[in-house]
C-alpha cells in the first residue's frame, strides 16, 4: 500500500544497509589473518603436540637448542657405537659415506672436500642434523645429551673446539665455523648471458669435441634388469 516514492526510499535504505554489511564482511575477511580461520577444519595444535614435533634448531643462532650438554669425551663413546661404521673411526668416511673431517683449504682446488670442518657454516646446524636424521638406521632416537656429545666430538675432530669443550645451548652458537663467511645467501643468477644467435654463430672449424662419454665404463645399462655396476 505504499507509494512508489516510499518504495524507492526503502529500496535505497536497503541498498545502503547491504553495502554497509558488505563492507563489514569484507573488513572481516581482510582482517582474517588475526581471526580464526574460515573453514574451521582440524583441531588446535596443543602445546604438548607442538613440543613433540617442534625439533628444529636454527643454524646461525641456535634458537631451538634444548637443555642438556655433552663433552668431547662422551662423544667419543657415542660416536664409536653409533657413527663409526659409516663415517670411519675418526670421521674419515667409509666408501661413499661422507667424510666428516678434513678438507680445509681444498675448496678452491680441483677436488674440493666439503666436510663439517671445511664447509659447514654453522655449528648448531650440526646438532640439528644429527638430532633429526642420524643415526641413519634409527633417526631421531638419541638423547639431547648424546647429540650434544657427538656435536662436540665432530667439532673437536676438526680442530674447531678444544678437548675440554662442552657443547650446550649456550656454547654451540658461539662456535665460529671456519667457512662461515664464504656463503652468499642471495642468488646471483642469471649469471650467463647467452644470446640466441641463429646463423654462423661460431666458426665450424672451432666446433670440436673436447670430451665424450664413449668408452668410459660409467654408464649402467638402460635395458633389461637393473644394473649393479660399481665404478672402477
Amino acid at each position: 500500500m505504499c507509494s512508489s516514492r516510499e518504495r524507492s526510499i526503502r529500496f535505497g535504505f536497503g541498498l545502503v544497509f547491504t553495502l554497509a554489511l558488505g563492507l563489514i564482511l569484507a573488513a572481516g575477511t581482510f582482517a582474517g589473518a588475526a581471526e580464526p580461520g574460515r573453514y574451521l577444519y582440524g583441531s588446535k595444535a596443543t602445546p604438548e603436540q607442538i613440543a613433540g614435533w617442534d625439533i628444529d634448531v636454527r643454524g646461525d643462532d641456535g634458537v631451538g637448542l634444548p637443555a642438556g650438554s655433552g663433552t668431547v669425551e662422551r662423544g667419543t663413546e657415542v660416536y664409536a657405537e653409533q657413527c663409526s661404521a659409516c663415517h670411519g673411526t675418526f670421521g674419515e668416511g667409509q666408501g661413499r659415506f661422507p667424510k666428516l673431517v678434513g678438507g680445509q683449504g681444498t675448496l678452491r682446488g680441483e677436488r674440493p672436500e666439503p666436510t663439517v670442518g671445511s664447509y659447514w657454516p654453522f655449528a648448531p646446524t650440526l646438532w640439528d642434523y644429527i638430532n633429526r636424521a642420524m643415526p641413519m638406521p634409527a633417526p631421531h632416537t638419541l638423547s639431547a645429551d648424546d647429540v650434544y656429545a657427538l656435536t662436540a666430538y665432530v667439532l673437536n675432530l676438526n680442530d674447531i673446539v678444544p678437548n675440554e669443550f662442552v657443547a650446550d645451548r649456550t656454547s654451540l652458537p658461539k662456535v665460529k665455523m671456519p667457512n662461515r663467511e664464504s656463503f652468499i645467501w642471495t642468488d646471483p643468477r642469471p649469471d650467463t648471458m647467452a644470446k640466441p644467435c641463429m646463423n654462423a654463430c661460431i666458426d665450424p672449424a672451432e666446433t670440436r669435441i673436447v670430451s665424450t662419454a664413449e668408452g668410459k665404463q660409467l654408464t649402467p645399462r638402460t635395458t633389461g634388469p637393473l644394473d649393479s655396476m660399481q665404478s672402477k
Partner: protein
Amino acid sequence: MRPSRWRSISLSSNLAGTPLGRRSVLGLGAALTGSFAIGAKPAIAATASPPADAPWSQSLGAGVVDRPYGRPADTEAGVIRRNVPWLTAGAESSVSFSPLQDLHGIITPNGLFFERHHAGRPDVDPDQHRLMIHGLVERPLVLTMKDIVRFPSTSRIHFIECPANGGMEWRAAQVNSLQFNHGMISCAEWTGVRLSTLLDEVGIRKEAKWVMVEGADGAHMNRSLPLDKCLDDCLVVYAQNGEALRPEQGYPLRLVVPGWEGNVNVKWLRRIKLGDRPWFSREETSKYTDLMPDGTSRGFTWLIDAKSVITFPCPEKPLSGPGLYEIRGLAWTGNGKIKRVDVSTDGGVNWQTARLHEPVLSKALTKFTLPWQWDGRPALLESRVIDETGYVQPTIAQLRTQRGTNSVYHNNSIQTWQIKPDGSVFDVQLA
C-alpha cells in the same frame, strides 16, 4: 658384393624384429645374433603376420579385472626407473632416473617419476598422518588427511627437477645416456590445496617472513622457504595424475613449489612452521649450495633455470639409417613458460626454431619437435631454450666460465648428442 657391416645390421635387425634402438653400441654382436636367428629359423617368414593372423588374433584374451590395477605390457618391462649404483653409498639416500627415452608426452607416468630420498621411502599410514602448522601464526593447527582434502582443491601441471640433474657432467661428458644425464626431471598434474589457503586459515602473524617445511621421513627433511613464494603458487598436494600420491613421491602429502629445485618440494609433509628468518638447515648449507671456483658458495639457489634436451635421438634411441626423422625433445623453466626452442644439427653453428606442442604451461614440461632429413653423415645435435623472461639456455662452456666444475647443482647447459654415420649416438661436450 658383401653388404657393408652396418647395412647388414640394419637388414638383420629388421628381419629379426628387434628395434635398433634396443641396442646402443653392440651392433655387431646383435647383427651376428640376428643373422644366426634367420639362418636357424627360416620358418618365421612363413608364419609372419601379415599375411598370417598372429596368435593373439586367434585366441581369447584375458578378461576384465584380470589386472585390477593395470600395468604396462610385459614387453615394456625394461621401461623403468634406474639408478647409478656407484653414485651413492646406498639406495636409501639416493636417486633414480626417469626413462625419458621411452616417454612421449609432458606427463610422467606415476610409476616412472624419478625418486630422490634422503632416508629411504617411508610407508606412511594416512590415518595417522598429521600436518601441523605453527610458529608465527594466530591459531596453530593440526590437520588430518580428511581435513586437508575438505579444503577447496586445485589441480596444476608442474615439473619437479632435482638440481643435481646433469651434475655428473660438470667436468666432462661421462655417462652415455639420456636417462642418467637428464632423468631427474618428471612432470605431473598435482591436486591439493593452495598453501596460501592453509596459511590464511591459521592466520599469519605480521613478523612472519619465512616458512620451514618438514617431512615425516627418517631424515625429517626440512627446508626454509620465503613466505612470499608460499603465498604465491605453492600447493600442498595429495594426488598425482589423478590418483593418490605414490609413496615414492610423498604419500599421503607433499609440498609442490612450482619451478623451484626438487628438494624443497618436501615429501611426506608433516610440519609447516612460520618464522622471521631462515633456518639454515643441513639441506640448505652443507648440501644444495653451489661451490664456486673462488671458494665462495651460493645458498638459497632455488630457481630451476631454463633447460631443454633432445629425447630422440639419444644414446638409448639411435638412428636406423639415413632418412627423415622427427627430432623430439622437452623444455622447461622455473621462470614460467617456454617462449622458443631452437635446434642445431651442426654443434651450434646454425639453428632452426622447433615447433612447440600445446599445451605450453607455466613451470611444466613443454614438448618440441623438428623434422630432420639425416643424410647419414656425422652430426652434432643440440637444443636451446629461451623462456618468457628472455633467458637463453647456456652452453656448458659458458656455465663453467661462471661456476667452474665443482658446483654440483644447477647444470642446465645445452646437451650435445654426437651422431655417428652408423646412427649411434654419444654424449659429448664441445669446446
